[in-house]
């Protein structure tokens, strides 16, 4: 009686383990198929990126961090990496921005990977924005 019950428990546990493994495998498969990096819209007609997409995905933080020191402190101009140029190529066709709407290039991916992007508090992330002074709505 005792022995049978023990056997019964072990079998149950085995069956549960099998279920768990299957469940995990299924989840991974679903994530792999439906998830992955979010679909960002790119506009190849505006020109090629600084590097291929895989390199850009991996290295763009480093590129930007290095360049900001070189431009601001060393006074380098005409550099390859410039935020304003990322914006001019990657701004959405409707929003003219890389951060204004949820589907805009930088924001879409950064929301997904949950990496806060604070550059556009200062850097202009929207094309064709006039200063308040020029459009006459200055404080």
């Amino acid at each position, binding site marked *: 009686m005792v022995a049978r019950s023990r056997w019964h428990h072990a079998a149950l546990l085995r069956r549960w383990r099998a279920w768990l493994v299957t469940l995990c495998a299924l989840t991974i498969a679903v994530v792999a198929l439906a998830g992955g990096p979010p679909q960002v819209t790119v506009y190849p007609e505006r020109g090629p990126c600084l590097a291929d997409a895989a390199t850009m995905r991996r290295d763009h933080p480093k590129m930007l961090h290095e360049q900001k020191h070189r431009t601001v*402190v*060393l006074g380098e101009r*005409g550099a390859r990496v410039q935020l304003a140029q990322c914006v001019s190529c990657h701004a959405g066709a409707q929003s003219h921005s890389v951060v204004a709407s949820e589907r805009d290039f930088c924001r879409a991916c950064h929301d997904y990977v949950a990496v806060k992007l604070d550059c556009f508090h*200062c850097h*202009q992330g929207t094309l064709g*924005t006039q200063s*308040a002074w020029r*459009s006459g709505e200055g404080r």
Partner: protein
Amino acid sequence: MNRNDSCRDREISETDRSRRAFLASVATAMGAVSLAPGIFLMSVGHEVAAADEGVRRASASVRWGLLIDATRCRADCDACVLACHQENGLPLPQSSADVRWIRKVTLRDPKSGAERSFPAMCMHCAHPPCVDVCPTGASFKRADGIVLVNRHTCIGCRYCVMACPYKARNFVHAPVTTQKPEVPRGMGCAEGCTLCVHRVDQGKEPACVAACPTGALLFGDLNDPHSAIAQRVRELNARPLRSDLKLDPGVRFFGV
């Protein structure tokens, strides 16, 4: 030897060095014969960095400065102030909390009633107190003497605002959305006159200088004895404001 020099030394080979020396001599010759101020400023003010052709850096052989001739400045004119706000995307100042990188100052002698009007801004000191007090190194002096805030490292403590004897630093209190792409700026940072660094690096003069209708403002390289500004400073014996502080400002005044 400053940071800029040591950095370059590591990067460039002997061939690059001689090529750069050749380029520099050609550039200086071109600058000397050219009448166009733009070409002159660019060739002298920047060195070609070896790592990437066409990328230039601020050079320690230059000391950018301004000469403000108060005898030519009209009390009723604020063209330089408007030009600064337009160039840098600053809202027009309405209250005392609004950002000002340049302001008109009027001095009045109570005895004679005589008035003097002139613009004042960051004096781009050689020994800037704002740099001394900055806890993060964000307030710094570029190789060519321009004093800036590196807003990537500024934590907004405002020590520099207090330390500056010329009251030239501002703090951005409100969110900004209307920046110009070439002049990023935003809430929570100290900022001040950049001597229009984005224009100067392209060989142009600062917006206030370009806008002055009476020629009261002169921009150039104080280190170059043949530059218009150096000659004029000598001629007029133009001195900085509060020269007793011995900060060696790059902005000099005449007739104040």
